[in-house]
Structure formats: C-alpha cells, structure tokens
C-alpha cells in the first residue's frame, strides 16, 4: 500500500478524530469550559446592576457590553487551546502528522469554537433581555455573534500559538489578540445598534462574513507556522 495515498484518503478521518478528541477533553474538563461561559454571563449581568435600570441607557450600552464581554470570554478560553497540547507533546505529534498541520490546527480551532463560541451565541439573546433590547436587536446580536465568534477563535489561535512556551503567556495573549479583535467588535456591536434604530444590518453582516472568510483562510496557516517554530 502506498502510504502517501493512504494518507490523503485519511485526511477527513484524522480531522474528525482531532475534533472528537478535543470535544471529549472539554467534556472531561467541564469546569474550564464553564468558567469562561459564566464569566460572560456575569460580566454582562453586572452592567444593568451598576448602571441602573434606565431602559434607554441600557439599550444604548447593550451592544458594546455584550460584545466586549464576548471578546474577553473568548480570550480567557484561549490558553486551553494549545498550551496543554504543547506541554504534553501532543502538538509535536500533530506537527509530525502526515496530514497538513494547517488543517489539523483548523480542527482544533473548530472544536474550541464549538465549546466556547456556540454557548455564547445561544445565551446572548437571553442576556440581551436584561438590557431591554427589542427583538430586531436580539436577532442582529445573535447573527453577529454567530459570524463573529469563529473569527475570535481563529485570530485567537494565532496569539495562542505565538505565545507557546512563553512565561506569562496569558497576559501576552491579551496584548497580542485584543487589538486584532477591534474590527469584529466595531461591526458586531454596530450591527446591533443599527438594528435597534431600525436601519439595515446587511453591511455590518457582510463585513463580519468577510472577516470570517479572511481569517478562515489565513489564521490556521499562520498558527501552524507559529506552532512549527514553537516545537523546534
């Protein structure tokens, strides 16, 4: 049997196995996953308590608050994406796989988004009610998060890969990654504001989708390159 041929046929299977493994690990380490999820809920819920029950103010700050909290929560979860795999040698084995590392990294990012991004998308409409957001606003927020949270995971992976093996990686990841999150924040929050004031959100959503496509193409490749340097 020609090993190279066998390798190509196995790409889908290997991709799925990486996703499965990371999901299983997330199930085993539920506490880690729940931490960033509850962090999101608590940060968002603190604002109505701190700012006061004035509906107009709340409606106005809602998009920004939810999106900033989503950014921070997804950043909080980044440390788990690659660091433990790096420490126990799993990343080395992935780098030595006969499959392209870029796609295996994409599999890891996908698993990461499924456990950290999707819960945020699902809970966000409920949190939006605390801010008295109208239905259009809730829809725009959910749709925006659905397009935006994968970008956060993808871009975050680059930061996580670049800081592998660095002491105090957590703080450094924040400095590297948060500035890159700014476009997603602007257009994600902008979409909600536009929807609340009755304008079309098409432009915002198109831009978020464009960010997603661009980061889908570039981020796994950049992360894989950073991982190769880290495992040297």
């Amino acid at each position: 049997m020609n090993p190279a041929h066998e390798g190509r046929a196995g790409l889908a299977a290997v991709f799925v196995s990486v996703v499965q493994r990371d999901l299983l690990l997330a199930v085993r380490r539920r506490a880690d996953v729940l931490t960033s999820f509850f962090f999101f809920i608590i940060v968002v819920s603190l604002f109505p308590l701190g700012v006061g029950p004035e509906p107009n103010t709340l409606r106005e700050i809602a998009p920004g608050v939810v999106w900033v909290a989503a950014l921070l929560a997804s950043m909080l979860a980044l440390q788990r994406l690659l660091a433990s795999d790096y420490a126990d040698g799993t990343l080395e084995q992935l780098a030595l796989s006969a499959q392209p590392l870029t796609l295996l990294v994409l599999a890891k990012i996908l698993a990461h988004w499924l456990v950290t991004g999707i819960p945020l998308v699902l809970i966000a409409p409920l949190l939006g009610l605390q801010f008295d957001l109208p239905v259009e606003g809730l829809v725009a927020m959910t749709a925006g998060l659905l397009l935006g949270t994968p970008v956060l995971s993808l871009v975050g992976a680059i930061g996580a890969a670049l800081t592998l093996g660095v002491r105090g990686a957590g703080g450094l990841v924040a400095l590297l990654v948060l500035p890159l999150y700014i476009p997603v924040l602007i257009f994600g929050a902008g979409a909600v504001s536009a929807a609340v004031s009755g304008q079309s959100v098409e432009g915002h959503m198109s831009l978020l989708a464009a960010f997603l496509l661009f980061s889908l193409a570039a981020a796994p490749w950049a992360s894989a390159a950073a991982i190769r340097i880290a495992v040297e």
Partner: protein
Amino acid sequence: MRGQRRLFGDLNFRVPPGEALWVSGPNGSGKTSLLRMLCTLLAPEAGEVRWRGRPVRSLGEAYRAELVYLGHAPAVKDDLSGLENLRFALAQEGRRVSEAALVDALRSFGLAGREDLPARVLSQGQRRRVSLARLLFCGDRPLWILDEPLTALDAQAVELVRALISGHLGRDGLVVLTSHQEVDLSGVKVQQLRMVG
C-alpha cells in the same frame, strides 16, 4: 546548534534497512536534538537529512508518513483513559483499530484492567507503556525514532520493547533510539553513535 552553543558537527552516518542506530552519550550532548533533526522537528544549522537518498525537507509529508517518533513527552492526556489515548494517537495517523485490538495491545503492555483509568492516575512507567503500545500498530512505517524509550520501564517492559524493535528490524525497518541504559539488542545489527558532551 542550540542557542549559541554548537552541540555537534561533522557528523555523517547512514542507516541501512534492518539496522538500528543507538545514539548514546551524556546528558546535554545533543542526542534529543539529533533525533528531532531526523524527524524534521528541528532544522539543522548546516547539513541535511536524507531519506531514500532525498532530502527530508523536500519530501515533507511523504516522509512524515513513513516515520514514527516517540519523544520525551509521551503525548498522553491526563484526562483520557489509556484506551482513549491509544485510540486517538492511532486515529491521528489515519488508523482505525478495533476496540478489541486496542485492549489487546494495552494488555500485552501489562495494562490489563487499567485500560479505562484516566492516565492521570497511572504511574510514569505506565504512561510510557501507553505511548509505546502505539508501536504495535506501526509496523508499516519503516522508520522508528525513539527518544529514551526505556526510561521508567521495568525489566519486563524493557524486554517487550526490545522484542518490538527486533521484530521491526526483522521486517527491514529502521530504528533510531537513544538510551542511557545498555541495550541488549543481541541478534540484530546495531550501529552505535557515541556523542561526547
């Protein structure tokens, strides 16, 4: 080169099929670095590694499909059981192995009854056995690169690894390994490469 320090140079060797290369030497003499260069994790400062006469850098994934590397870090996940660890390690090579075969492999490595325990509660030697059990399925990959495979193993497990290595050499495979212990590979062809500190 590691940082500013030159670990070794002027090194030239060839491993023919069916032969083992035993790299020995004191700590810090560059054994692990050499092995990592052989499997493309580390790029040599000068010189090149060739596989079937072609530089491995240009072969890329085709070369990686022919080798197995077991490094210092056993790549065993604390939160997964021995069975799951083995299953995922093999799945990442594109192998689908039946549950029964996995259990058999772990049993033959002395982990009977411990297949479903999370690796966290296993001892150092038992984790190493989990990662070594992978070799039972890797006979179709000609090049085995094993970094200190015998660390933390008891006499019985050392014997198992020894048998695996001779079996692989018997199939015309290649084995490159490092070890501090004297390895008794009687009956097989072994080249020894002694690195000096």
